[in-house]
């Protein structure tokens, strides 16, 4: 099995909307040791001008990785998940993610290249709010190790 380059350019149907919750933000902030009060203290978030608790800068990965499954687990993708190594990640924030957001994530295959029995893929996940406006763009590069 190797990465199926024919899927480059494919856009998957959006994942069901992800509901961003306060406790989810608090738990993620604690896990990445993000101590700024806008992640955990509602009064501090409101005082800083936000609508609710603010997600830390890499929280979008939770939504993106969930959505990327549509491609990674697609039998056509040729990706053996046990051989996947995370190579690069990038977040471009168009606005902050806050508790209460309903976010729809759409995954597209930016690049898919076979190398031997493995390869390299880049996914682009567009996170969009309930108002249809862009929230975050997530680029993720995965290396798929070849079979030994």
């Amino acid at each position, binding site marked *: 099995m190797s990465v199926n380059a024919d899927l480059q350019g494919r856009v998957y149907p959006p994942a069901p909307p992800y509901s961003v919750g306060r406790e*989810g933000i608090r*738990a*993620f902030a*604690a*896990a*990445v*040791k*993000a*101590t*700024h009060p*806008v*992640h955990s203290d509602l009064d501090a978030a409101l005082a*800083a001008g*936000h609508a609710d608790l*603010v997600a*830390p*800068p*890499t929280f979008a*990965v*939770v939504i993106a*990785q*969930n959505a990327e499954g549509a491609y990674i687990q697609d039998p056509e993708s040729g990706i053996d998940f*046990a051989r996947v*190594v*995370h*190579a*690069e*990640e*990038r*977040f*471009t*924030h168009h606005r*902050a993610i806050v508790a209460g957001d309903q976010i729809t994530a759409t995954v597209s295959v930016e690049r898919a290249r076979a190398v031997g029995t493995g390869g390299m893929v880049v996914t682009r996940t567009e996170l969009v709010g309930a108002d249809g406006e862009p929230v975050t763009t997530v*680029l993720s590069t995965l290396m798929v190790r070849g079979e030994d």
Partner: protein
Amino acid sequence: MSITLDSLEVGQELARTTVALNRADLVRYAGASGDFNPIHWNDRFATEVGLPGVIAHGMLTMGAAVQLVTDWIGDPTAILDYQTRFAAMVPVPDPAGSAPDQADGAQLSVVASVGKLDAAAGTVRVDLLVTLGEEKVLTKSQAVVKVAQA
């Protein structure tokens, strides 16, 4: 405290810290992120797939490292863009006799410096050097941060 572009110069060190990750931190991140890949919590599985043992999630290292930038600028939403390459794995020790949630764990050094200034956009690119011992764990780790105009 207000940081302005004209107070910064390329190459200037902004801040440094040490981030410690132990086994309990990995379990906490697995739960919070939904990334339950067993290489991050099960030694037997990790060694069976050729790793030296349990390793930290790359995304945990990336997520924890950027806190230094948040502390420096004072506002996590000033970070407009954040990217990294995962250059080396971070093995997380589980020393005999230790309480897993109190062990020192892997000690990551994080140094933030000015990579680039963009006066037109009002942003500074903060470059993060993240190392474990002598080894670079993250490379091309860059956060684009909005700063106040002078």
